[in-house]
């Protein structure tokens, strides 16, 4: 039963992709052939080497560009011409660094807030005000104080990924079942050990859910942040290709960003499966 439904759904999703590709191909090549041959070759070259339509590349062009980009992903030919793999590595490094910093600050802080009703009451209003601020709003402030575009991008990632982790950790820690806490208390387990052996495992699924939300948001925000600060990264790559009017490379970048985002999410989903317990 389960097997067949999985086969069915993957068949269906393949069909949908093929259909979309067919419509896309039909739309981009049908008008292209006639017009492009009659038009000024220089104009065609300006729009795009061999694409037709209104400058929208066909799936075949995208596929070709994808293969070309991925065959040499790490070349470095000056500040405005780097391989997509190199740019992704810059972005990933920023995301992972900002995320790690947020985790180091957010999880222990959330732990303490969750355990102390006093702190929870005191800090909750502040968190509620800061949480809804778009992380990009912090960018000018970061640039002004840090004076380094790369570090500012990391700071923005830090700011945007700390909130879900902080809030989820607080919630998870504050809502550990009291009977589990009582088990620790009646066994006279010292407080720190109790926090690590009872509260942490009990709250871990909620904490990891927060981390999963965080990494998703961080991966969303990095593209916008890099478009703003420029220099390196996949966001800058897209901005640069837009300036080059290379729509095909932008589509390639969108695909690659999507795939990496999915991989990041699945990694945390895997961790989540490992530490989730059944009651």
């Amino acid at each position, binding site marked *: 039963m389960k097997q067949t439904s999985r086969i069915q759904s993957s068949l269906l999703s393949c069909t949908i992709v093929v259909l979309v590709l067919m419509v896309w191909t039909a739309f981009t090549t049908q008008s292209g052939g006639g017009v492009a041959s009659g038009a000024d070759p220089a104009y065609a070259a300006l729009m795009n080497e061999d694409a037709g339509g209104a400058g929208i590349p066909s799936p075949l062009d995208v596929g070709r560009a994808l293969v070309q980009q991925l065959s040499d992903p790490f070349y470095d030919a000056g500040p405005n011409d780097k391989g997509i793999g190199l740019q992704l590595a810059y972005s990933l490094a920023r995301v992972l660094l900002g995320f790690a910093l947020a985790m180091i600050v957010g999880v222990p802080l959330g732990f303490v807030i969750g355990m102390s009703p006093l702190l929870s009451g005191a800090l909750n209003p502040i968190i509620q005000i800061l949480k809804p601020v778009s992380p990009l709003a912090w960018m000018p402030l970061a640039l002004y104080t840090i004076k380094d575009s790369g570090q500012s991008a990391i700071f923005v990632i830090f700011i945007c990924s700390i909130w879900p982790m902080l809030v989820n950790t607080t919630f998870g820690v504050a809502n550990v079942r009291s009977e*589990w806490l009582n088990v620790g208390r*009646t066994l*006279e387990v010292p407080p720190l050990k109790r926090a690590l052996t009872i509260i942490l*495992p009990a709250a871990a699924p909620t904490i990891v859910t927060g981390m999963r939300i965080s990494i998703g948001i961080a991966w969303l925000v990095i593209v916008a942040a890099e478009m703003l600060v420029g220099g390196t990264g996949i966001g800058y790559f897209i901005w640069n290709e837009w300036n080059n009017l290379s729509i095909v490379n932008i589509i390639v970048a969108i695909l690659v960003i999507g795939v990496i985002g999915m991989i990041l999410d699945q990694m945390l989903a895997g961790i989540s499966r490992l530490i989730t317990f059944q009651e």
Partner: protein
Amino acid sequence: MNTILKLMPKGACTETADIADRKSGRKMISIEGLAKCYPKRGGAPVTIFEDIWLFIERGEFVCILGHSGCGKTTVLNILAGLSEASEGTVIADDSEISGPSLDRAVIFQGHALLPWMTVLGNVAYAVSARNPRWSRAKVREHAASFIAKVGLSYALDKRPSELSGGMKQRVGIARALSIEPKMLLMDEPFSALDALTRGTLQDEVRKICVETEQTVLMITHDVDEAIYLADRIVLMTNGPNARVAEIVRNTMPRERARNELHHLPGYYDIRNHLMDFLVSRSGSFDVEAATQAGWSAKRPPVVEIGSGV
């Protein structure tokens, strides 16, 4: 034709006698004037129970019987050190209870197993809390031997979610026994089980407690369970303002089997007495009228029914 024999408090009993009793070391637990109030939203605080006096001797099995909501769990939690009394004190082993202690193990109303640990892990957690210096192997061996006592050796590596209700409660019992406490506190440990499982578990618990001369305080609202397990049965009136109305001394022979218990002479007299209390007297208990008739909170009447001995 049942002979009801009431041992009314002797007026001459003084507090110095109590203290002498306590010093002699027979007393494991001494509950003295215990009361618990909870604040009520927009009103005066509610007193769940008040003026509770109870002594438990070493090696004794005491059951508290009372209706839902009369504060049994609350009394037990105070004894466990998990919550604080509003008034009065509890003295355990010559010192006042100020918090949880490894000397008093608790078997919770829900099984309260840690779901991310295996059966062995749950018991070993308690064992290593009791003996922090033991090696891993020794902790494991000790835990496994107590799991064997409740007949779960085949399920060492299972998680609580893979166990039936009865098996979970068994693990809870093994965990409590594994720290070799001076006293066992049980909060309706069998109430969520089917009759058959409950019966076998009662047998096991009774066997272990008799063998090890374990001091036990158990809460129940099952009359038959109380008669089978307890040496003394404490009857609490309905809350709020619950009291200990009387204490029934169990006259069933010490060697008793669950299956034959109801054939013993005097069994139904005790059972009817307890049922009568639960059905009518627990609700209509009037402190003033009872005091006039000689009842006192400090020395609630000890009742012996029949002559089962």
